[in-house]
């Protein structure tokens, strides 16, 4: 297999973007092409989950090729729920690694703010099992609430730990100009103060408002290429070193142990095996914290910390920007935002930015290896990516 490099990156602000869906895809794509100095690609993969439902637009791969005059490049749209972004990167990786293509564009895009919060929640819930979950009114926040309650009972995670994740990621987002929620929050304001219960009401007990990611619009793009093309681009050599994917039961209640996320574990194991380094070697990570509990649990399942000890590492500050292993320096889904189809590409964009040393005030010192975990369904389809900086 050929080695695969990230030669160009681009991203929009994750926020409310009052542009047509295809422009949200086009903007970061043009940025990425300018970043690497290329004006043509062999193939385009567009990651998107809700274009047909929320924006009444399908075939986004073809639309983006046309919008950017990239003909006759091949084009496809990749849909894998909230893991669509990393899935598209995986497709791009395979295309280059196999030798089929030399240069591919992977763009993730979503426009969700057009829908109101109830419609957006219902849209995301469409990934749940239609007969065993959806018809009972199960939504992602409700599943996360039940999951969190179990996790708290089993491992001693408290509301304070969840709030600590939110506060950390909001603080990180203050340094990210593309983040959706650029405002600090405090323990007094969201948990311990007299007004906290109104500022931060329960949404799905024990999860509160500030335990949830925002609904965002946004787009992000990576240009993947062979080593030969990467060298010519004269951008820092960032290798997409590992790709791992694993699945689990569609229904959460069919799992042997509902507090385990074996698909996260499996995806990370495959990814690290391919990359040739281990979890302990990772310098910076972006984990899929659609709910604050998920950052804690994923940090355990991918192997950064022992099972049930993620919250203890958080307490010790290991995962903060200046800690031993900074997690979600971008602000994560929690504060950077979660335009579902773009999220996985956005995570990869952050890691590449970190490894290039271009992250400004949120730069993780001497970062040479990075990792992303893009969590689809409620852990039923997970894609992990590992990146390595080369000289």
């Amino acid at each position: 297999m050929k080695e695969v490099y990230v030669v160009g990156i681009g991203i929009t602000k994750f926020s409310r973007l009052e542009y047509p869906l295809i422009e949200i895809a086009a903007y970061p794509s043009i940025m990425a092409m300018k970043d690497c100095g290329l004006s043509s690609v062999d193939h385009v993969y567009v990651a998107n989950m809700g274009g047909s439902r929320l924006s009444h637009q399908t075939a986004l791969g073809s639309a983006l090729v046309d919008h950017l005059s990239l003909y006759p490049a091949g084009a496809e749209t990749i849909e894998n729920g909230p893991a669509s972004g990393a899935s598209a990167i995986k497709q791009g990786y395979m295309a280059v690694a196999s030798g089929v293509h030399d240069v591919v564009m992977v763009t993730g895009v979503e426009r969700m703010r057009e829908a109101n919060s109830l419609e957006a929640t219902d849209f995301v819930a469409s990934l749940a099992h239609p007969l065993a979950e959806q018809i009972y009114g199960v939504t992602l926040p409700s599943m996360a609430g039940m999951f969190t309650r179990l996790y708290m009972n089993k491992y001693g995670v408290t509301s304070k730990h969840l709030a600590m994740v939110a506060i950390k990621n909001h603080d990180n987002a203050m340094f990210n100009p593309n983040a959706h929620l650029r405002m600090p929050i405090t323990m007094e304001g969201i948990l311990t103060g007299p007004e906290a219960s109104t500022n931060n009401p329960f949404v799905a007990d024990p999860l509160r408002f500030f335990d949830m990611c925002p609904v965002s619009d946004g787009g992000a793009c990576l240009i993947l290429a062979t080593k030969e093309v990467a060298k010519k681009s004269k951008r820092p050599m960032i290798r997409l070193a590992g790709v791992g994917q694993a699945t689990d039961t569609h229904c959460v209640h069919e799992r042997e142990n509902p507090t385990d996320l074996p698909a996260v574990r499996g995806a990370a194991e495959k990814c690290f095996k391919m990359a040739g380094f281990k979890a302990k070697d990772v310098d910076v990570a972006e984990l899929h914290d659609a709910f604050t509990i998920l950052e804690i649990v994923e940090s355990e399942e991918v192997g950064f910390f022992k099972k049930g000890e993620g919250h203890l590492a958080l307490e010790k500050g290991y995962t903060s920007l200046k800690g031993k292993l900074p997690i979600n320096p971008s602000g994560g889904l929690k504060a950077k935002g979660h335009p579902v189809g773009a999220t996985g590409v956005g995570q990869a964009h952050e890691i590449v930015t970190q490894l290039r040393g271009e992250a400004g005030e949120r730069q993780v010192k001497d970062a040479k290896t990075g990792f992303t975990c893009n969590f689809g369904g409620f852990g039923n389809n997970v894609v992990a990516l590992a990146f390595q900086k080369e000289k």
Partner: protein
Amino acid sequence: MAIELEQLLRPVDNPVPPFTPKFVTLANGEEMVIRQIDREDIPALLPHVAPLIQVERDYYDIVSARLYAELLGFYRHRVQDEYVLVAQIDGHLAAIVNGRLLNPDVGVSYHTLALRRGLRIGAHAFAAKMEYHIDTMKQKEVLIVAESPIGFRRWMIEYQLEKRFNVAHELGGVPSYALTKKLFDKARDSLVVGRRPVPARLLEKACKAILPPTDPPKPPFDLLAATRAMYDSTGTALRASSQKLEGGKTK
């Protein structure tokens, strides 16, 4: 003659008790003071409301245009029994709410304008307005409408307002909803917060001057985006201009 005519044009306000200032700690730890302002303070508000008339998003344009007129009407004595409350963070204007008395038992809620978005700033200010009607002025109910989906969610859904569709609201003549004392009492624990008295340092800073909002809503960055998409549906010009400007290379 002019003075006599002005006397005819000016309504005479009924005496009502003042709103006692309170403060709220927001999610970000900042302390927001909510207090009543006088007629002579209105000119300090108008320059901050006017620019929002250009913001279409979430109906800021309609709310701001109507609120501007209401504030001007209050300032120039053309509204009967109006009051205005402001929310300030570190002296900076964060929200404006206003309303008036329809009669001793029924109040009319006019507008809630958040000049800084998020953190429930508008929701806290609205709750203070309802508190003023129900607790301070002892009114039985307040007539309310929403001009934006966010308003509908915050007022009609969160407070579970009763329909008063037989009553046309003063804002556009649309059917009214009502917050009764019973509904307010039900929402009191979860939605109505704040502490009194306001510490002197906070109140003094708020009363000293109404400073400009720190992060007011703005129109979209690129107003022509939608138009461009309409007239350049293939994006060819967008791509060509990008290449021309940046000198794109081929691989």
